[in-house]
């Protein structure tokens, strides 16, 4: 019997320990306890979230692989499949921002190429505390350079992403990393360990003591002992991963292997047991054969290490030599460490002794699942009531204040640290509604976007979930892409608290409803709980990564004005919705009110119209209205035009001026079109049942926004552009 104190230190409850004893028919030894501790951690087992995640739609006619594998896979025609996934690396990035973020990139890349796909694009969703606090600045600087350091070196472009600043992420940042890969349909590989007698090969970096208990760490809150956890963070080696990537893809291309799995969270333990479990086999490995970086490592340490850049391969005996030759070419070793067995046991030997002997099922599939209690949080009673707000005295100044809040400001300071052009497929540079990546050898392109407004989800979790999906799809519509599949990263506080569980449940239901309406499947994702520091949870933060297809890249359009004399049309309707806006947050430090409400059917109609108009070649540009409202959308259209063209706009809605300019009513897109397409555009809008209105025209070097014969905003584009562009660099200036 293992001491209660040790069981607790392994993050297991007494009940869970009893279940382990029941499953294996005896007390586990310490090594086995370590294995259960990892595999039954929240991070690996999804024990608190599973019951709710089941509500998500995961099937569809083009789904090749849904949740449960390393990444989701969708058929995109032409014999090609798109492989994509999002993962959080929040906890490691908090403790060691550079390495935490870098290994996050390394991990998601392995998830993609382990399935036979070449990674073609990375994106990141980042959340930081306010930059007024030096600690947050240093965390952001570390995270951004970590992402750059890994992605740039390995040569996968970081093509976009999104970023929010909020005190709830101070100093616990969120780092969600998303990757897309492209595979030939017949060359997809899975984490399988079939065929008794087949060889288990270890490839990549040596195993060290780094990252032991990383997954357990990611399943607990942070307190003042934070500094002590630094050794739990792994160190990344992008060069090694580049070699691993090329060698693995070459081995897969030559059909030499049965199955492959990366060693991510829970390292060797997770990869061996999952591969065996997926194939209903057993697996036996000998730890003496595992390449080790340090001397005197115990079986416990070797099995639980999360050293990076390692993979496990199962190959037929007669192909082992051919596999080894390819790895040698790339200056790597493929080392035989064990074999697949009949039966259902994970057996581990070390120093001639058996140190582990447990059924794979017990670790992989039989972790207890919890239906944790949930309860609507009390804060919602206070946040719904919005105090009366004064109307801005000077709209120009108010708008500049909104524009220069880091959440709304230009993110070029970040993007230009990332190599976003390597592989020469980036057809739309970062900063647009969605990233666009051409698919060589076809007319098509992939589009991808990440979205998730934490303020909406805080004030109304269900709407927050719905809007995250809707806005991501809207972003895709703006470049002419049809959404095909969704991955999600759900970042929350401690699920043992009923209010957090309620937020989680609501958000998942919102996402589910929206995905069903848009008829797009969720193919996988990641849940990150315990994002709390000293008991203070983050806002519920779902991040949706949606991949779309542009049927003909030549027809795709960008967000910015192209030239003078373009008519500006509003697709969708202005409404009086000021709650939960960036305006309230930036100008009044208020996180209150009812966030915008969305009618998913209306949203669908607007998106359909935008897609059809782009397909018919009726539009010059399209940009969706989101944070910062109509006003910011107009300015961004000017900023993103290469000539920095201005415009004049006249609004007549009977809506309070601040709400009209800065409100974030959903289902709205601003497009520009040439005059000879007006009538077709208006007809199409009528057919689709979408409200459309010409609100102004491009031209000049100023932006003028008028409301009912009153000029509210009148600013020089260059002046506003410089303020927008300089806001984030200014915060990082060394004074």
């Amino acid at each position, binding site marked *: 019997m293992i001491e209660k104190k040790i069981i607790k230190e392994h993050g297991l409850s007494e009940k869970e320990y009893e279940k382990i004893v029941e499953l294996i028919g005896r007390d586990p030894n310490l090594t086995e306890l370590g294995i259960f501790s990892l595999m039954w951690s929240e991070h690996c087992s999804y024990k608190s979230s599973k019951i709710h995640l089941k509500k998500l739609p995961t099937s569809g006619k083009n789904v090749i692989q849904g949740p449960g594998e390393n990444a989701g896979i969708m058929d995109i025609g032409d014999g090609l499949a798109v492989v994509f996934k999002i993962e959080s690396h929040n906890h490691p990035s908090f403790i060691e921002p550079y390495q935490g973020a870098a290994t996050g990139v390394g991990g998601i890349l392995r998830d993609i190429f382990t399935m036979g796909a070449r990674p073609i694009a990375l994106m990141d969703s980042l959340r930081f505390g306010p930059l007024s606090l030096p600690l947050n600045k240093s965390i952001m600087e570390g995270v951004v*350079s970590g992402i750059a350091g890994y992605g740039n070196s*390995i040569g996968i472009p970081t093509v976009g992403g999104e970023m929010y600043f909020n005190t709830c992420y101070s100093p616990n940042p969120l780092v969600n990393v998303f990757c897309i890969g492209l595979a030939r349909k017949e060359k997809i590989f899975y984490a399988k360990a079939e065929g008794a007698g087949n060889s288990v090969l270890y490839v990549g970096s040596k195993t060290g003591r780094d990252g032991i208990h990383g997954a357990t760490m990611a399943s607990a809150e942070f307190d003042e002992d934070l500094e002590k956890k630094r050794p739990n963070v792994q160190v990344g080696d992008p060069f090694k991963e580049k070699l691993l990537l090329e060698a693995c893809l070459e081995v897969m291309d030559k059909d030499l292997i049965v199955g492959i799995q990366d060693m991510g969270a829970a390292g060797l333990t997770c990869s061996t047991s999952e591969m065996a479990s997926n194939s209903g086999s057993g697996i036996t490995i000998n730890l003496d054969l595992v390449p080790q970086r340090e001397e005197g490592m115990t079986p416990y340490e070797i099995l639980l290490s999360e050293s990076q850049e390692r993979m496990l391969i199962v190959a037929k005996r007669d192909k082992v030599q051919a596999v080894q030759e390819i790895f040698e070419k790339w200056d790597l070793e493929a080392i035989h460490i064990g074999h697949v067995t009949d039966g259902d046991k994970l057996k581990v030997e070390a120093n001639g002794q058996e140190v582990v002997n447990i059924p794979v099922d017990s670790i992989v599939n039989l972790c207890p699942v919890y239906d944790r209690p949930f309860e609507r949080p009390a804060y919602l009673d206070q946040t719904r009531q919005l105090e009366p707000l004064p109307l801005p005295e000077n709209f120009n100044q108010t708008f500049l204040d909104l524009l220069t809040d880091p959440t709304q400001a230009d993110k070029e300071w970040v993007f230009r640290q*990332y190599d976003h*052009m390597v592989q*020469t497929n*980036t057809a739309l540079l970062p900063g647009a509604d969605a990233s666009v990546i051409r698919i060589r050898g076809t007319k098509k392109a992939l589009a991808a976007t990440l979205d998730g407004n934490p303020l909406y989800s805080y004030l109304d979790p269900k709407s927050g979930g719905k809007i995250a999906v809707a806005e991501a799809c809207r972003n895709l519509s703006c470049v002419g892409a049809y959404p095909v599949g969704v991955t999600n990263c759900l970042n929350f506080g401690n699920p043992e608290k009923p209010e957090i569980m309620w937020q989680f449940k609501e958000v998942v239901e919102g996402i589910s409803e929206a995905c069903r309406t848009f008829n797009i499947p969720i193919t996988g994702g990641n849940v990150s709980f315990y994002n709390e520091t000293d008991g203070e949870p983050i806002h519920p933060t779902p991040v949706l990564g949606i991949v779309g297809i542009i049927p003909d890249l030549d027809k795709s359009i960008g967000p910015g004005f192209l030239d003078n004399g373009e008519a500006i049309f509003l697709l969708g309707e202005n409404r009086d919705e000021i709650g939960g806006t960036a305006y309230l947050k930036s100008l009044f430090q208020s996180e209150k009110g009812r966030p915008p409400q969305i009618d998913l059917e209306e949203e669908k109609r607007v998106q359909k119209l935008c897609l059809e108009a782009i397909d018919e070649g009726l539009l010059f540009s399209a940009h969706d209205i989101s944070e910062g409202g109509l006003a910011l959308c107009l300015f961004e259209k000017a900023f993103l035009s290469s000539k920095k063209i201005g415009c004049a706009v006249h609004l007549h809605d009977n809506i309070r001026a601040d709400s009209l300019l800065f409100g974030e009513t959903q289902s709205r897109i601003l497009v520009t079109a040439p005059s000879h397409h007006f009538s077709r555009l208006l007809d199409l809008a009528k057919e689709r049942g979408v409200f459309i209105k010409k609100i102004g025209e491009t031209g000049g070097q100023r932006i003028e926004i008028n409301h009912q014969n009153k000029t509210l905003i009148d600013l020089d584009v260059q002046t506003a552009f410089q303020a927008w562009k300089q806001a984030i660099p200014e915060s990082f200036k060394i004074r």
Partner: protein
Amino acid sequence: MKFGVVIFPGSNCDYDTFNVLRDVFHMETVFLWHKDHDIKDVDCIILPGGFSYGDYLRSGAIARFSPLMQEVKEFALKGGLVLGICNGFQVLLELGLLPGAMLRNKNLKFLCQHVHIRIEEEKTPFTNTGKKEQVLRIPIAHFDGNYYDSEEGMETLIKNNQVVFRYTASNGLISDEGNVNGSKESVAGIINTAGNVMGMMPHPERASEAILGSEDGKIIFQSLINWLA
């Protein structure tokens, strides 16, 4: 006419360069593997961008010891055309085929963005289809692109007309703002005295297709093709 693109472990613009030569210019193009001693009878060797050997040491410092580099050096000394792009430029500096060294960018950050460069010398194998003072819009993507040489070294470079490209503002004028990485004399690309080896930090292969936002980089490849024809 045959082009060879070198692959070091850690090269990541190898395929980008290869694709432009093969698909945009329809040239016979082969890869040259760093462990080989075979340059496959090519007429021009391109050292592509990337992070050869991870560049954990000085950029390009390990790559110069690759077996293939002996042959590349011999090829260059015999007058063969060699173009080093980004990391390839760094390798050429380490190999001693070009003078000078690279420091960290002046803002101490990796920089990936479109920049403007001005053609300073149009009578080279690499620029003969361009015009002197023509401004090209081409992306850079590097951490160590801040060109440095001693005062005497810079004098020699300028005296011998070895500066082929300079960073400028969009109007073609030299400015601090245009010189994004802080290079001495705004140097973006240089050539050896014999005129057959050039290194440049900007990536012409990223600016050779309209879909990528600029085709100005084609001048470099087209010039090579004209020269060899």
